[in-house]
């Protein structure tokens, strides 16, 4: 199997993007990624489009994006893995190259959630689980999914509301320094505590927003990457797992089992010990669709012991200069969460961090040359953990 590297990245401004349509938004990211890789469209042998859709009008987004970006007639597909759609799209292109099927592939994650009115988006996301038993009858919303975990976690480990607030404050702090972020404004604990309840115990400032945005990466085989760039960012390994559609069928509500399984897989392939895994990484992007998700991510990735993730937040160990900087691009909370683009956006953030190309005030110190993304679809319905490095993987 061959090594695969990122050789180009693209990222749009996230937020309410009513100035462009879906394909125009995708093009902004694709154009940037092609320019960075110094490639023309005819050199892209395969492209994957990550898009969840429903809220946007085009039914076949991969085709629409392919046509607009002049990628037709190359092979394509639309990928869906809920909020981890972007990582799933990366997986498809990564495997296509790894297996030797193609040498250069483009991944674009794009989502335009504002094409539908907000109440309908709430409706559609709420349906994204075990629809019949949990939405049809009981109207569980997406914040509600994570709120179930938050209430269970608080009861078991004694985490306080303020500990969740610490996550929101950190991610807004970095969002304020990221020109691509939807929210470029810091928040205070007072504002956090006063924010509107959404699904107890989660409030508006625990929640990632409804977002439009796109991100793209160009992937290449080792042989091709070497010819094109002096600074490839290698995909070292990826773990992938799934969870039940019905939340009620989970045995534990204080962590995301699929994410832990995905992390263990990725670590095993990369030769990383689960305990103290954080020592290997300079930076992490984890799935903070809600603040509780970031706390659970710390534990599911082995950055903190079970039940101690909130202490990492309380002690501010996930700021730059701490034990392990997490979501220093603002995270989903402040950068925004255009569902199909999020996983690709994480890859772009990590690649640019490792190459010292992050925005001022968000750049970490790169010692190991290694970063990690943790991208959860639904509430652990899907999970993808991907490890990136500036050093060529040995296996």
């Amino acid at each position, binding site marked *: 199997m061959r090594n695969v590297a990122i050789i180009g990245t693209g990222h749009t401004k996230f937020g309410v993007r009513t100035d462009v349509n879906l394909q125009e938004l995708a093009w902004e990211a694709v154009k940037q990624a092609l320019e960075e890789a110094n490639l023309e469209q005819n050199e892209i042998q395969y492209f994957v489009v990550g898009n969840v859709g429903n809220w946007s009008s085009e039914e076949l987004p991969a085709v629409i994006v392919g046509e607009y970006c002049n990628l037709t007639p190359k092979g394509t597909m639309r990928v869906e893995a809920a909020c981890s759609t972007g990582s799933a799209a990366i997986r498809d292109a990564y495997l296509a190259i790894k297996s030797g099927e193609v040498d250069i592939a483009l991944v674009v994650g794009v989502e335009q959630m504002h094409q539908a009115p907000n109440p309908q988006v709430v409706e559609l996301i709420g349906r994204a689980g075990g629809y019949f038993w949990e939405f049809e009858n009981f109207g569980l919303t997406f914040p509600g999914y994570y*709120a179930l975990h938050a209430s269970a976690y608080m009861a078991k480990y004694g985490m306080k509301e303020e500990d969740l607030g610490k996550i929101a404050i950190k991610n807004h702090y970095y969002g304020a320094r990221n020109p691509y972020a939807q929210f470029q404004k810091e928040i205070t604990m007072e504002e956090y505590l006063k924010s*509107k309840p959404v699904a107890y115990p989660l409030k508006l400032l625990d929640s990632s927003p409804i977002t439009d945005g796109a991100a793209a990466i160009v992937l290449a085989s080792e042989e091709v990457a070497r010819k094109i760039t002096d600074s490839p960012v290698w995909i070292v390994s990826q773990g992938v797992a799934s969870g039940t559609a019905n939340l009620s069928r989970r045995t534990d509500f204080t962590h995301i089992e699929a994410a832990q399984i995905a992390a263990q897989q990725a670590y095993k392939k990369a030769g990383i010990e689960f305990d103290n895994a954080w020592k290997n990484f300079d930076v992490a992007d984890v799935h903070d669709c809600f603040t509780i998700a970031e706390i659970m991510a710390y534990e599911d990735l082995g950055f903190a012991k079970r039940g101690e993730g909130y202490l990492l937040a309380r002690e501010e160990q996930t700021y730059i200069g701490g034990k392990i900087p997490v979501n220093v691009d603002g995270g989903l909370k402040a950068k925004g969460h255009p569902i199909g683009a999020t996983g690709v956006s994480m890859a772009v953030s990590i690649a640019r961090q490792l190459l010292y190309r992050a925005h001022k005030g968000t750049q970490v110190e790169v010692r190991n040359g290694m970063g990690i993304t943790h991208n959860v679809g639904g509430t652990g319905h899907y999970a993808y953990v991907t490890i990136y490095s500036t050093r060529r993987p040995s296996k």
Partner: protein
Amino acid sequence: MSLNEIRDKMQKEISQSLTILDNVIKTTKLPIVNEQKTNNPLWIDVREIDLRYQVPVKKIIKFFEGLREGKVLATKCPKCGSVYFPPQDDCPKCKISNLDWIEMPKEGEIVAYTIINVKPPSFSHYQDYVVGIARMSNGVNVLSWVRAKEVKVGMKVRLEVVERKPEGYLTYELVPMG
């Protein structure tokens, strides 16, 4: 509010927005409006989908018959003993069908809960509702509404068949005990 009144209210809102759209088309000959905040021009879809799915329930019709008798039923694989709730008539572990139907125990304990404040439009006619997951005495979880204002993890609850108002169909809820 009755179901028809709710529907009328929603339809009225839709009609109002369609009237606005009609006027825009009449005056400008295009269904384009400018977004308030940014002034960006938006094409407002002139086609709409009014969609209700039809979900087949033949294989688990006994569950719904059970509700009529005041019982919440689960299925149990006669071979491996797995209990399925929500019920399903196939055991994918043993690859057999026609599982046994058993009644779910009535007693359980809340393991997770939330209060839904921001509701989907299709639930907007309800007051804020509590969704909880209870671990029942047989170790199987049930997710449903909890009929209580104050809920805590560890709270003892009873599983009951109830009529969902205002729609009037049978479903189940968790009710605090004692």
